[in-house]
């Protein structure tokens, strides 16, 4: 009964989506208020029905309804409750429903937080989002129905993949999808601007917070995925340049370019058609990612098991959405205009360079990801493109962008002076070189790679300090506290996000340069030493979990005479799928992680134990967290919320002033 209800809810959502994609759009073209007024309630109703369907599927999981095929494939009576809920998005059909739910939620948010937007714009934006919804709902209803029945019902399910039975599964996919789908808002805003033939600073001010939130959430989603891989795979790796990982990284890179481009469009009215293009590109890459994960075109540990028929559907959908938006772009972009003028050396040109570099980086990732497919398609053989390639190519590409990050925030709009900037930044440069030389030597031994990375990281940090000092010096008089409080939230957002990148680089460089490991054979009572720590293997016990049995080791870690921590690495066997899993034990400190994993047991009493000392690895995800927080801080800047006070009359005036002169 409940699954049928869910199925019906999806059908209703589709009907609403069809209405939402057509009438408000037509209404905006004709000036029909009644049709335009449909947009908001339609979006909200669509969200409601999708949420209802999602709730029904969750109920089927939680109540162990194995007459639903999807539940039987991804759940089990012994699966703990949290993972039964997370299992909803553990497979292809359910994760599509999650994707659609995220779309519904973003639509809902847009319908609520757009009170002072012009009616035509809201109608067009929600119509475009509705069209995307139509595509996904059609796909689900015709090719990937999560509510398909399995009759006769299975006695018990096949269990969720043990690799996914982890808190990471609860948070990573929802956050990631929230980010992916969030770019559809910027996309819809861009489409609305192209259809309207107008794009001004006000448009940028509206789209910017939505895009920044989507970007922040995507940052956090990717970081969660990386952290999860780190502790669950047992080898301490955190990024593999796997096609699916790249599929999430490309929209992130383009999204970063987009938020910077939007800054220029908002503040200076420049880069208009470029911003529109970036918004289309970011969302297109999100959709491409959806295709790559589910079509079977590329091999990946993250890929869902699907058949080519589904791949065709998604490819057609991708072709239609992106193809039509790029066609619209080609046709109407020139109407949108080029925007303000700026000098060869100016903040605008530096941001444009940043954009170019980020796009080249994204292009390189795309090239590497698709190249094996390209060669195979042309019958030129089969190759693999893995981490050695991406690391060799990506790092040199990003280095100039990171260097520029230090200069651009200090450069003036419209016209900046290189000599002046050089003078202001000379101390920052000196400090950066000092840090780049001192830290590696302090860590133990010199490494050029580490030195160069730290140079960039210190540069970003030092220039941020210079920037902050300059801003404070220009603020109206008052104590330092008062002056700090006067700076807008968006400024702190930028500062935090940029510092986040510096922190991230420090983490990557130091762990790659100074990681230590030892693989030992331990019997109970044995000790091992690594980096000044003593690891004593005190016990091995058999533990029974809800759906697994486990050999649980106890390792006492001391430093000198001081006890540090007791770690319990496990070797689990998940009974339903008969799959072994290594659960590493990590002592996550601010300056280092101690990572212990059990290898194979050589005899019942002797085990291979892998011990790692990873300096500053926590800074990798700490940096990402700072980036995410910075983004959210910037998105909630007061000036975006001041629009409620300003009222629409003022907006119309502003819009009129900024409209491009030549049509």
């Amino acid at each position, binding site marked *: 009964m409940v699954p049928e209800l869910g199925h019906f809810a999806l059908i209703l959502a589709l009907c609403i989506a069809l209405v939402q994609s057509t009438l408000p759009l037509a209404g905006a073209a004709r000036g029909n208020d009644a049709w335009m007024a449909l947009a908001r309630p339609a979006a909200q109703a669509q969200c409601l029905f999708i949420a209802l369907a999602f709730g029904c599927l969750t109920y089927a999981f939680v109540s162990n309804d194995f007459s639903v095929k999807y539940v039987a494939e991804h759940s089990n009576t012994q699966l703990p409750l949290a993972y039964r809920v997370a299992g909803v998005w553990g497979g292809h059909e359910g994760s599509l429903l999650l994707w659609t739910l995220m779309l519904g939620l973003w639509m809902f948010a847009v319908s609520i937080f757009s009170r002072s937007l012009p009616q035509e714009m809201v109608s067009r934006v929600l119509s475009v989002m509705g069209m995307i919804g139509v595509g996904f709902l059609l796909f689900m209803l015709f090719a990937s129905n999560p509510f398909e029945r399995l009759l006769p019902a299975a006695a018990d399910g096949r269990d969720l993949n043990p690799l996914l039975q982890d808190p990471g599964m609860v948070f990573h996919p929802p956050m990631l999808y929230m980010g992916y789908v969030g770019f559809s808002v910027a996309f819809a805003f861009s489409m609305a601007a192209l259809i309207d033939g107008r794009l001004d600073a006000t448009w940028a001010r509206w789209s910017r917070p939505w895009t920044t939130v989507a970007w922040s959430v995507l940052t956090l989603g990717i970081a969660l995925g990386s952290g999860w891989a780190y502790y669950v795979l047992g080898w301490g790796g955190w990024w593999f340049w796997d096609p699916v990982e790249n599929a999430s990284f490309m929209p992130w890179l383009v999204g970063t370019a987009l938020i910077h481009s939007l800054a220029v469009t908002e503040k200076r009215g420049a880069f208009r058609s470029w911003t529109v293009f970036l918004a289309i590109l970011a969302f297109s890459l999100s959709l491409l990612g959806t295709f790559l994960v589910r079509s079977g075109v590329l091999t990946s540990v993250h890929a869902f098991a699907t058949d080519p028929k589904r791949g065709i559907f998604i490819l057609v959908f991708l072709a239609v959405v992106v193809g039509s938006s790029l066609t619209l*772009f*080609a046709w109407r972009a020139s109407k949108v205009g080029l925007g303000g003028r700026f000098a060869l050396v100016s903040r605008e040109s530096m941001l444009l360079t940043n954009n170019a570099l980020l796009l080249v980086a994204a292009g390189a990732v795309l090239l590497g990801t*698709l190249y094996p497919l390209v060669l195979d398609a042309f019958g030129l053989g089969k190759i693999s493109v893995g981490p050695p390639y991406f690391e060799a190519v990506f790092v040199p590409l990003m280095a100039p962008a990171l260097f520029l990050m230090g200069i651009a925030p200090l450069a003036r709009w419209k016209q900046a002076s290189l000599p002046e900037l050089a003078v202001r930044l000379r101390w920052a440069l000196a400090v950066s070189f000092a840090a780049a030389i001192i830290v590696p030597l302090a860590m133990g031994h010199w490494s050029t790679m580490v030195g160069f990375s730290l140079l960039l990281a210190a540069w970003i940090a030092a220039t941020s300090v210079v920037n902050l000092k300059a801003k404070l010096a220009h603020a109206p008089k008052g104590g330092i506290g008062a002056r700090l409080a006067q700076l807008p939230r968006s400024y702190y957002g930028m500062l935090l996000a940029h510092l986040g990148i510096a922190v991230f680089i420090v983490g990557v460089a130091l762990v790659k340069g100074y990681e230590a490991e030892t693989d030992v054979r331990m019997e109970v009572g044995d000790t091992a030493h690594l980096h000044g720590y003593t690891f004593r293997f005190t016990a091995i016990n058999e533990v029974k979990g809800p759906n697994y049995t486990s050999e649980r080791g106890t390792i006492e870690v001391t430093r000198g005479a001081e006890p540090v921590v007791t770690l319990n690495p496990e070797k689990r066997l998940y009974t339903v799928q008969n799959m072994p899993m290594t659960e590493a034990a990590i002592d996550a400190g601010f300056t280092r992680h101690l990572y212990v994993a059990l290898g194979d047991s050589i005899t019942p009493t002797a085990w291979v134990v892998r011990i790692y000392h990873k300096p500053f690895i926590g800074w990798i995800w700490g940096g990402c967290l700072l980036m995410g927080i910075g983004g959210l801080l910037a998105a909630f800047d007061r000036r975006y919320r001041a629009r409620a006070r300003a009222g629409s009359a003022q907006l119309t005036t502003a819009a009129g002033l900024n409209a491009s002169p030549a049509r």
Partner: protein
Amino acid sequence: MLRARFLIPLAVFAVVVGILGVGLTLDPREVPSPLINKPAPAFNLPQLAQPDKTISQKDMLGKVWLLNVWASWCVSCREEHSTILELARSGVVPVLGLNYKDERADGLAWLARLGNPYQISAYDRDGRIGIDYGVYGVPETYVIDKAGVIRYKRIGAVTPEVVRDKILPLVKELNGNA
């Protein structure tokens, strides 16, 4: 007004979609063999049924023959077995087996139960020869010509269609060059 440069993204996208479309017809996990048109790697292995005798690829010089890599633990091998049996019985081409990473007793029992299409089976216990032949997933089948050069490799189970469309014509062609 339509400016040419604004069409570039669309053109690039069209190419990408084309490639992805072709990609849907391909299998990213299939690894083609670099050994095609190269001499069959040498081996001198004990025979499965008679451990004191050996078999080498040199023994088959002057004949066109098939090398079928199989194992008793391999499910797909069971699926293709009837096809291999029929091919062997037809006498068109001799078939040699390479028993890959198996227990001798298990391999012999499997053949006794399901039928033995192989003139002789070589016993590759540790899989070394398999690696030399680029074996990564049993079953795999090679067509080798009179000069001992590999001409064709089939990855996965041999189906009647593969026999009809690929193997038999090739064997005929290789035999015709006498």
